[in-house]
């Protein structure tokens, strides 16, 4: 994770975002139903990669790089009996991480590449056709 000097304004904004995150996830009862649909958990089989695992981390107000290991596909939200918008919470937490200067180097690179070349690998889209499956 990179660290940058954080302005007061960014710090305040990050704190507000984290309050919104708490509001979203506070009804979570840790039943774990979200795990059954989560493609990241199904592949890695590790609780901290599951929506419930991430909700527990967020409830402790921890901003960890594991929050970037989510597809934001909202499959967990379909299964959640309480309709908790886990992906919205993760998105907001990521924004807070960026504001606090905790953005991942890889994520930063990916965004720069997309802006520059329209693909996350930074290559000419025509040349990297065989590498791209999702966009």
């Amino acid at each position, binding site marked *: 994770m990179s660290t940058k000097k954080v302005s007061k304004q960014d710090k305040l904004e990050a704190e507000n975002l984290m309050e919104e995150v708490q509001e979203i996830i506070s009804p979570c*009862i840790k039943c*774990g*139903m979200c795990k059954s649909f989560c493609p990241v958990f199904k592949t890695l089989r590790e609780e901290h990669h*599951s929506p419930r695992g991430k909700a527990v981390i967020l409830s402790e107000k921890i901003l960890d790089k594991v929050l970037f290991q989510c597809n934001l596909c909202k499959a967990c939200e379909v299964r959640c009996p*309480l309709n908790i918008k886990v992906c919205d919470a993760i998105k907001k937490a990521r924004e807070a991480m960026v504001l606090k200067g905790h953005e991942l180097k890889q994520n930063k690179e990916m965004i720069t590449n997309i802006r520059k070349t329209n693909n996350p690998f930074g290559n000419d889209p025509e040349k990297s056709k065989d590498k791209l499956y999702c966009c």
Partner: protein
Amino acid sequence: MTLNKSTTKSYETDASGLRGKAKEVIFPNSIPEVQKIVTITPKIVPRGGGTGLAGGAVPQNGQDTVLDLSKLTRIQSLDKERSSIEVEAGVILDDLQHHLKRYNLEFPVNPSSHTIATIGGMIATDAVGSRAIKYGRTSKWVKWVDIVDSQGNLQRKGATELSDYAGMEGTTGVIVKACLKLSPRKLRTASLVPLETVKETLALVRQLKLDSSVSMMEFMDKRISKDLGLEERYHLIVEYESDKGKIKDGAYEKLLALRDRTYPLLASEGYTRIEDPKILTDRFDKIMPWFESKNIPVFGHLGVGILHPCFNHDQEKFIPEMMKLVRKLGGQISGEHGIGLLKKSFIEPNDKKILVNIKKRTDPINKFNQGKVI
């Protein structure tokens, strides 16, 4: 692989909502890896899907190593002639059912957490579920289990020794593999029966118990029925392993999904503490007025007498009184969720003695799941 302190937090709770503290988390990829870890680790809390409602998988005091068995997912030899299959502990029940579908077989025990519950966890808690009236507990469907003992030895335990591990909530050894008995896949239908009184409900349950095609009798009280969008009356979901039920196919699946949503729905309304007393079905009418007088919502597997009263924070003070009443009626304090941390104080002295003896015999150095059950 071990985790940093932040991500370890994910393993310091389970569906019970209790919070603990772990020293570290380890994810073995194979049974020999489990053996190695057990040999060199002083205190271990085995963990499956983390769906326990009594805190059985919650680590304590920052001293416990959580052993997450979720990566032991191999589904091995299926014996079609004997209708049995060997599976590792981390296999999720629904994944197993999906695998068995093509052979027209199934594992018949069905806890409501079937989408995430692991086979190892189901054996460790001796899970029951909604079809208990026909299929009983998980242990009834286990031929043998492979366990790793406190010295790191792999041992196979057959039917006679199974009770030392099934239902012991990981306090006696780490369940790593099991041979499960299977049943032919059934065509299932259901009926949703609205009822006016407790007496009427009990009479219907008695009558249905005589019908061998009935595999589920799920009770919901008036309040829960209303919350689920049904009429404000008592309801009984009756599942048939025949075409007797009027609710079929997609509508049947929807009805069962509705039933699985009951506890999460109640929890979202503040009724987070779910209990699981077991009484004789015939005494249901003796306990139901008590729940109603205290406004405690109740659902459960009425066919086998397991009830799920759900308490909000203010009502939790009534739990000891309920346990007293359950005992007075000749029932058990826990029908299916286990003792874990939440019900330790309610264990009868004689039961405790038996459990302590099993623990001493199987885990003399007290390595596994310290402070749970006893």
